């Protein structure tokens, strides 16, 4: 499967380098840290999305299906690509407070940074799990709109539920580490079902179901 990842990395090479540098610069500007961090994490979805769009444009899947890969490996490579860029985004989020600390000697709340990073990683895994099946089902063009719609519905629901739990029902939220620990198996389960769905859509697409 390394061949598939290499192909995607070669394709995204210049763009990803530029976007990662921009994300790092944003996250270094005071008051823009949150924007920079969010931007860094969004790359984890933006770059695989553009990779799928590129594949569609050159009909790469026709060739890939002739190579010694299973459909599941071809699909999984996109998930891996997302996780790789998530890691790079995380590296930026760690790097920016470190650089700020070096230059301004300002104190950094490292436990807070770790917690923020872990939460963002889980959110990204969920976004990727939501988005990739949509891209395989509807294609890169329509899929990104469907994905945004799903994201809006998902975020709205999450906000409403959180508000109800914390505000109206006056239930105390568990500490962040507990929440994080609980969300890891949930994210793994969502990823599993998302992956199965993506493979299903990919195979149907290969057989001309959505053309």
């Amino acid at each position: 499967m390394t061949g598939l990842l290499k192909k995607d990395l070669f394709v995204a090479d210049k763009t990803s380098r530029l976007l990662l540098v921009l994300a790092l610069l944003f996250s270094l500007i005071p008051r823009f840290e949150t924007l920079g961090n969010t931007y860094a994490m969004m790359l984890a979805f933006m770059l695989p999305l553009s990779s799928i769009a590129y594949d569609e444009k050159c009909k790469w899947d026709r060739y890939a299906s002739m190579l010694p890969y299973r459909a599941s490996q071809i699909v999984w490579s996109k998930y891996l690509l997302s996780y790789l860029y998530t890691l790079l985004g995380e590296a930026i989020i760690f790097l920016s407070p470190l650089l700020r600390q070096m230059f301004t000697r300002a104190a950094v709340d490292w436990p807070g940074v770790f917690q923020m990073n872990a939460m963002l990683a889980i959110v990204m895994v969920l976004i990727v799990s939501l988005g990739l099946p949509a891209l395989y089902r509807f294609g890169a063009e329509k899929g990104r709109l469907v994905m945004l719609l799903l994201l809006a519905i998902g975020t709205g629901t999450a906000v409403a539920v959180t508000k109800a739990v914390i505000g109206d029902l006056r239930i105390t939220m568990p500490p962040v580490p507990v929440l994080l620990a609980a969300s890891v198996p949930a994210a793994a389960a969502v990823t599993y079902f998302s992956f199965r769905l993506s493979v299903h859509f990919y195979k149907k697409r290969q057989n001309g179901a959505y053309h």
Partner: protein
Amino acid sequence: METNAIEIRGLTKRYKDFALEDLNLSLPAGCVLGLVGENGAGKSTTIRLIMDALERDSGTVKVLGVDNQSQAFLDVKGEIGVVLDETYVPEVITAKQMGKIMAGTFKNWDQAAYDGWLERFRLPRDKKFKDYSRGMTMKLGIAAALSHHAKLLLLDEATGGLDPMVREELLEVFADFAAQDGHAVLLSSHIVSDLERICDYIAFLHKGRLLLCEEKDVLLDRYGVLKCTREQLANIPQEAIHGKRVGNYGVEALVERGFMPRDAVVDRANLEDIILYLSKE
């Protein structure tokens, strides 16, 4: 190696507007099979089904002795070189990067062989695909297909749209590959002259059905072209005639020599004549 590099039995794939019906086809090891047919006849569908890149409705396919729906087929895929009508590789990729992608794809990838092909085809290593000519792009696809010690080569319109010199060069490469012990080639094309040059067997697909699959030399011996008047044609046994073209000055017909009177003068038919007449039959 098995006797047949490819063995297809009762293969059927139906779409809304097209069906490949009950295909039975064998490619003996050590041979070159030409798959000929008009655009949309089902050649590419057949190749995709051979590689299990499409779900079939019924039938079986064995490649290099292995059922193509078994777990073991993934390893067999590593022994097959495929060249499609386009390279279908992102246009920002270079030949050098292509080598790295393939090295991560094929267990038997041979970088030295790949470098050798790039040199032989005079392909620049750091130039992006988008700056390649069609001939160069196809050569790169072939270089990739021949650099992992493949035993079987599947070529889907790999010579289409190329100038005669490049086609000649590539046909030589395919013929050299086929000449090596145990190698086999399936070459799909509608350029019949290419098939006539290097194929041992010819399979003719027409509207999703296999009209014939025969040794090329047997075909060329069996059929001939008869040029005569309408009156002379009327005296020829009907079972001998497989198609005719009537002009102002006479008739040209594809005839089967075995049914012809001994004194009849029948010219040699080329593969293109045979295919054209049979498709109109």
